């Protein structure tokens, strides 16, 4: 930043114009002051704020400080500052929005994290229940299919004991004789 200063004789000339005669400060709204700081005001309106800032040392000090702060990168704020401020507004402060009857039947995901978690948990329960029911049905069908296949294969390859003993006994006695 430049440290260029104005010659002292000019300063002395300027100082000789100060009378010390007090006048009432002009009220400047925060919005007007912010617009002036950004250079966004039309000339006539800017001139009114120029005059107020010229006349009021406190307003001038504020303007110079704010221009300096806004022109620099800012350091991080202490974490507890944000934590305290965030606690000022809770979910209860949210204003209900009037919805149509159809929209009111649907879940409102803008209602906050707690609501979202509840909705997700309910969805997970429903998915699990449907999955269980489907899984049970499939396994029953599977068991029936396995049983049916075992029945058919045993009838051709391995016969259970006692299923047809008449022929075997006839063979045994005929061999013996």
């Amino acid at each position, binding site marked *: 930043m*430049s440290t*260029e*200063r*104005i010659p002292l004789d000019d*300063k002395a*000339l*300027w*100082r*000789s*114009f*100060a*009378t010390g*005669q*007090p*006048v*009432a*400060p002009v009220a400047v709204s*925060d*919005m007007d*002051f*912010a617009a002036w*700081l*950004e250079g*966004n005001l039309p000339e006539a309106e*800017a*001139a009114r704020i*120029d*005059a107020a800032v*010229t*006349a*009021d*040392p*406190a307003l*001038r*000090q*504020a303007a*110079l*400080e*704010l*221009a*300096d*702060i806004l*022109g620099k990168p*800012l*350091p*991080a*704020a*202490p974490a*507890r*500052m*944000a934590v*305290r*401020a*965030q606690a*000022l*507004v809770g979910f209860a*402060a*949210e*204003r209900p929005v009037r919805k149509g009857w159809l929209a009111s039947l649907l879940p409102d995901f803008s209602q*906050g994290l707690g609501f979202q978690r509840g909705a997700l948990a309910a969805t997970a329960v429903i998915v699990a229940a449907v999955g269980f029911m489907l899984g049970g049905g499939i396994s029953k069908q599977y068991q029936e299919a396995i049983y049916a296949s075992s029945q058919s294969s045993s009838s051709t390859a391995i016969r259970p004991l006692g299923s047809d003993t008449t022929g075997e006994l006839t063979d045994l006695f005929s061999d013996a004789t």
Partner: protein
Amino acid sequence: MTELSQIDLRSLAAGHKRTWDAFVSAASPLINAVVRRSLSTYRLSEDDVMDAAQDVFVRLCANDFRLLKTYDPARAGLSTWLAVVARSAAVDFARRRRQATAPIDEVPEAALAVEDRHVEKLKIPDGLLTERQTLILKCLYDEERDVAEVAQLLKIDAQTVRSTHHKALLRLREHFKGEPP
């Protein structure tokens, strides 16, 4: 982290918690800087700085976000407006705190000057200088700021500050030629 310019102002003014939390995260560095700077002439503790910053946030959300609803994005950026609001709140906080606790003898002179709300009228005929010329001379001479600082304040080139200053002095010298002010 969300930037101030990305904050949904309607959602914020409607009091949505998540928007408020994002706004606080984005605004905290600025409000912290402004409050510390504004209170630097007062001898206040770190807890006081925290309380003053909290005061700013309370102002913003009080009475159903009434102050926030006065912000007009068409006129100035949110950062600039917030900085102005934060400074006003911090100065008010310091005045209240001083009135409540500190004997007048212990208050630094610089801090007293902040409350000195009288303003001075110059012995210059109306219309001789423009308001902008007068402000530039005030900043350069009374505030003893350099040209770059004045240019930053007024969002103009340093060269414009120099030429405005030069023209103002010429007018003053011309007007008061042979006539001491």
